[in-house]
Each structure stands twice: as C-alpha cells, then as structure tokens.
C-alpha cells in the first residue's frame, strides 16, 4: 500500500524531533550533573538521542525530496515546524525531574520501537532496530534512578513526587493519535500510539509503584506539539541556543 508522502514525512519529523529536542535538553546537563558518573551517563544518553535524530531526520529529508539534509531540518526550522511532544521541550528542572521525564519517554520508546522494527518501510524498520537497543538500555537506567530517588530519602521522594505531578499532564500527548497516525497504521508503517497505552500504563505503573510514587488521577493532557498546533514558550528559547550558530553564520561547517 502506498502512503501519502506528506503524512510519512510528518511521522518521521515527530520521531526525529522527539529525539532531537530531548537530546538537546539532556545535553544541557553536560558539565553540570551532581556527580561525574551521572554527567557521563547523561552525555551518553544525549549522544544516542542525537544519533537517532540523524537517522530519523535524514529519512524525513529523503522522503520530503527537497534536497535538504538532517542538519537543515534540525537547525533551519522554526518553532512552528517542530513536531515533538511538549513533554520533551520543558526545561530540565532538577536532576530528579530530568530523570523522571527521561523515564516517561524511555518507557514509551521501549514499547514503540520494537513494533516499528516490523514496519513496512524498510528504513523505519532498520532505524528502529538500531534505536530500540539503545532505548532498552536507557529505560533500564532511568527506571532504576526513578526507583532509587523515589524510594530514597524524604527529600528525594518529595522532589520525585513533585516532578511526576508536574510532568504527568504531558504524558497523554504521546498517545493522542490523529490522521497521520491513522495513515501510518493503515500502511503498516507504525502502530496507532493509542493502542500502546495499556502496555505503557502497566510498565510505568509498576516502576512508579516500586518508587513509592503516586500517579495523579487527573487525566488532563496538554497537547499541540506533535500535531504542530502549538508549543510551549520554552521551545523557542531552546532553539535560540541550539540553532544560533547556523543562524548567525549560515552554512558554516566544522
């Protein structure tokens, strides 16, 4: 079955913008983490995410067929063209909040990517096979850290509970499917994310229970990032940092 190229490009931008925006956010910790081992771990995680971004945005650029590169898409698009979920563009907060967000996203990726390995799009399947190994490693660490800090001291527990309450309203967007997802599902390229929710709730529920943290009961979800309808004010600020060199010196290379 042939798929609408614009729809496929949208799907690939969502995949690549998620890893790009989170990769950049995590890289902001480089040199600032509480201990050396965590600094290295965060930098390594960011590196994996940026590497995955090169593959997703590279494929997106090929599908778009306008002669652009992954770098063009990363550094020369404006806020309104980004398709990442809002969760990932939020500022890092403290170390606990950063790792809570990492866990909430890693858990999603660890469920989505193995399914993408069976995609009818061979390149999507190949990228997913590569990325899912890294996501499995990431979720192991972020889940361990969430449990360690949640079921830790009174102070760390309180911070992790606050982080969960702040971030939870952004989780629902990952599962808010639309016509792009319907087209991907019909073409066998990607599953409808709404169908992954039960498995996600089971995984996240198990880890957060072990971390002695309570999931907020309110099901409200902030949306708009993956559909491109709206972003938070934070993304624009982040892009001024991430894109400044290509904006100030267009076409500059190493």
């Amino acid at each position, binding site marked *: 079955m042939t798929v609408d190229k614009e729809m496929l490009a949208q799907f690939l931008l969502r995949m690549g913008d998620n890893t790009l925006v989170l990769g950049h956010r995590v890289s902001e910790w480089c040199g600032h983490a509480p201990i050396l081992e965590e600094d290295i771990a965060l930098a390594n995680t960011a*590196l994996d995410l940026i*590497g995955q971004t090169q593959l997703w945005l590279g494929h997106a650029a090929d599908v778009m067929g306008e002669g652009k590169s992954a770098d063009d898409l990363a550094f020369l698009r404006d806020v309104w063209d980004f398709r990442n979920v809002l969760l990932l563009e939020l500022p890092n907060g403290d170390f606990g909040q950063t790792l809570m967000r990492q866990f909430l996203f890693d858990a999603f990726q660890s469920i989505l990517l193995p399914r993408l390995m069976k995609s009818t799009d061979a390149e999507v399947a190949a990228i997913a096979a590569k990325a899912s190994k890294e996501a499995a490693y990431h979720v192991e660490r972020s889940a361990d850290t969430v449990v360690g800090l949640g079921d830790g001291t009174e102070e760390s527990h309180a911070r992790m509970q606050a982080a969960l309450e702040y971030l939870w309203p952004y989780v629902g967007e990952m599962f808010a499917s639309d016509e792009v997802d319907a087209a991907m599902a019909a073409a066998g390229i990607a599953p409808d994310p709404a169908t992954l929710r039960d498995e996600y709730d089971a995984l996240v529920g198990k880890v957060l229970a072990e971390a002695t943290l309570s999931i907020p009961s309110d099901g409200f979800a902030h949306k708009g990032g993956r559909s491109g309808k709206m972003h938070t004010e934070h993304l624009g600020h982040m892009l001024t940092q991430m894109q400044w060199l290509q904006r100030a010196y267009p076409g500059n290379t190493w």
Partner: protein
Amino acid sequence: MERTVANTSPASVAQIWDWLDKVPDPEIPVISLVDLGVIRDVAYDGDTLVVSVTPTYSGCPATGIINMDIETALRDHGVSKLELRRKLAPAWTTDWLSDKGRAAMQEFGIAPPQPTGGPKKCPNCGSQHVEKLSQFGSTPCKAQWRCTACLEPFDYFKCI
C-alpha cells in the same frame, strides 16, 4: 612497454579484509575494525571496491573517524575506486566481536561483553568480585565497573 602489475590487477577481497584487519579501532586501538565487527561486507561492483560499514551506536562520534581510517588505509594500499556504504540493518551487536578482539581487549584492561550483562572477571587481577559503578563510560560502547578485590575501576564493553 612494461606493465606494473600492482596497478592493473585489483586486490582480492581476501587481501582487502586482511588490510582492514590492520586498521585499529580509533577508541580501542588494540582491536581492529574487523575485530569490532563493523565491516559488514567487502565486494567489487564492477571495478569499484564497495565496503559496507555499520555504526556501533547511532550517535558514536567515532563513526566518522572509522570511515576516514578505512578510506586512508585502502588508498595507501593503492585502491583508487572506493565506495563506503552505511549499512544500518541488521543492527550491530557485540556478538560480532571476534575472539581475537575479545582477548586483546581483556589484555588491554577492558572487560569484554558477556551475555549475562556484566563482566566475568576483573581484567586487572582476575577476581570475580566486581561491582557496577555506572551503566555508561568513557565511550558509548562502555560502562564503568570496579573490582572489589584489587579496588581498580575498569571499563566493561557493554553487551548489546
């Protein structure tokens, strides 16, 4: 008129593999790129030599250096028509590390990957009493461990 044989007959595929097995990994120079398992295929497409290379981790900064080192080595051996292809699937796995590479790594002080997910023994003193310090290390492919017998920290090559 004399003919220079070296310039007219292309090197055999076996010869190319042999040359590539002399190209060190840029981050763990005691093992070769062939030992690392990133060279997936060597073949001629007409008179062009095509070398297929797979990345270890998708964001590994050594990937660019590896391609450059392959090109430099083969050009030094007189290969003029060369194409490097990125081969993403099947995804790289530490199962592809050669036995020679594993032994060299251990000798160098890096514990080779184990299916159990942790090092079998300390690469310095051989003790089996080891503990994990961090799941991540100095390069994307390594984690940090410590020996509780000799107290030396060491790198462990992650099993993926």
